[in-house]
């Protein structure tokens, strides 16, 4: 099955325990059970079962991608094999243009820590991946219910828990006081690829990562 043991695992010098290697779920029944739990949120099980960021369900986000934004489904149940019960983790999302040089598609430095690259440093993804978002690990056990999107009181939570909109913030580039992770609009008619990484909050080391997503092209305006 394509994807098993394909991506890099960083080995930290002198650490007591090697990070657990990422194993693609070749057991299709396990995946099917997880997908059925998420109900209509997920597309039907794709032939390529290696885990990578997916576009948000087109029934929920009907206009996706737009000229400068891409809405991605959050990584539900993708990192479960790497989570330890007593530790806190975060998910980092990296984005880069497909035209970026293949060699610079690493998202960690030599010590296993995830890169702190920004949109501006990477020229919007042309030179390599930039960090677009940091958020908490999505809850695999109780994913958001897509039917709740119809309820105006719950829709904000459902959208926040289910997807992330890359390119949402049009002002952070020009705001000198902005200290958080900047997620500026993407370029139209350009192909991007995205990657989620799992980072341990205590030591800041990357514990797991997905593959780079399939190329996703933003819309082209005339």
């Amino acid at each position, binding site marked *: 099955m394509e994807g098993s043991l394909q991506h890099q695992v960083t080995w930290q010098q002198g650490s007591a325990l090697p990070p657990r290697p990422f194993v693609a779920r070749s057991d299709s029944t396990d995946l099917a059970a997880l997908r059925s739990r998420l109900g209509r949120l997920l597309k039907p099980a794709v032939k390529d079962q290696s885990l990578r960021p997916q576009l948000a369900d087109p029934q929920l986000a009907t206009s996706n991608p*737009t*000229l400068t934004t891409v809405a991605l489904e959050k990584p539900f149940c993708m990192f479960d094999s790497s989570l330890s019960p007593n530790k806190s983790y975060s998910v980092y999302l990296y984005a880069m243009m497909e035209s970026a040089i293949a060699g610079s598609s690493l998202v960690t430095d030599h010590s296993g820590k995830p890169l702190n690259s920004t949109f501006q440093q990477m020229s919007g993804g042309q030179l390599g991946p930039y960090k677009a978002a940091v958020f908490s690990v999505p809850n695999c056990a109780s994913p958001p219910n897509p039917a709740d999107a119809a309820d105006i009181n719950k829709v904000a939570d459902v959208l926040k828990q289910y997807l992330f909109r890359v390119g949402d913030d049009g002002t952070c580039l020009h705001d000198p006081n902005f200290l958080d992770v900047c997620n500026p*609009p993407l370029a139209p008619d350009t192909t991007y690829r995205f990657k989620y990484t799992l980072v341990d909050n205590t030591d800041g080391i990357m514990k797991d990562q997905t593959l780079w997503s399939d190329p996703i092209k933003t819309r082209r305006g005339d």
Partner: protein
Amino acid sequence: MAKDDNSVRIFQGLLILGNVVIGMCGIALTAECIFFVSDPHGLYPLLEAAENDDIYAAAWIGIFVGFALFSLSVLGIIGVIKSNRTLLMVYIILMLITFAFEMASCITAATHRDFLTPNLFLKQMLERYEKQDTDNNNDKLMSEGVTKTWNNLMLQNHCCGVHGPSDWQQYGSAFRSTHSDADYPWPHQCCVLDARESPVNLDGCKLGVPGYYNSNGCYDAISGPMNRQAWGVAWFGFAILCWTFLVLLGTMFYWSRIE
């Protein structure tokens, strides 16, 4: 002589009846055209900006023609009752002039309807909606008219764009040059709004979540009233003209028989 008298009376009666019908139709035409000119749907600025407001010109002519028909029908009735050649001659000449005007109005309304295509309104919407850098005062007025009309259309009919919200994504527009796609994939009037006219959920609207944005296009809301106006003026006018033609023929025959 009695038979002659009877047939004359019958013919007079028919002419009077014909003129009564013309009079009533004239009033109806005036009323219909006043209704159209009053622009209840507020779509006139779109036609004005397209420089193609001939269906409104046709409606204006219809108002005056209707009134003229009513007055002339009264003149015709008096002329037939009195069997006065002068009166009837005046009636025939004026009726022919009115006939010509009404013919022009009907043809204008019928043919200009063909200009009102979705692409015309799409192009206009993309070029003028929220256009900020206007060349001159006329341009500014037209753009403001188009912007205001579209805002009203989208709010009242719960629609977006001409074919749908994808119009704003697929084509470049004046709106796109001043509003970023990240914040405004389409205007916020396309969102489902609450009582205070702010979007119920802005993120849902921007993503296109069903129920939080208007997914259908406004073309039906534009073309419906305009087609009704064009057809209403054109076909009612043609119907009146057919009837008037018959009455005119009868009146000319009657006039020629008065000694």
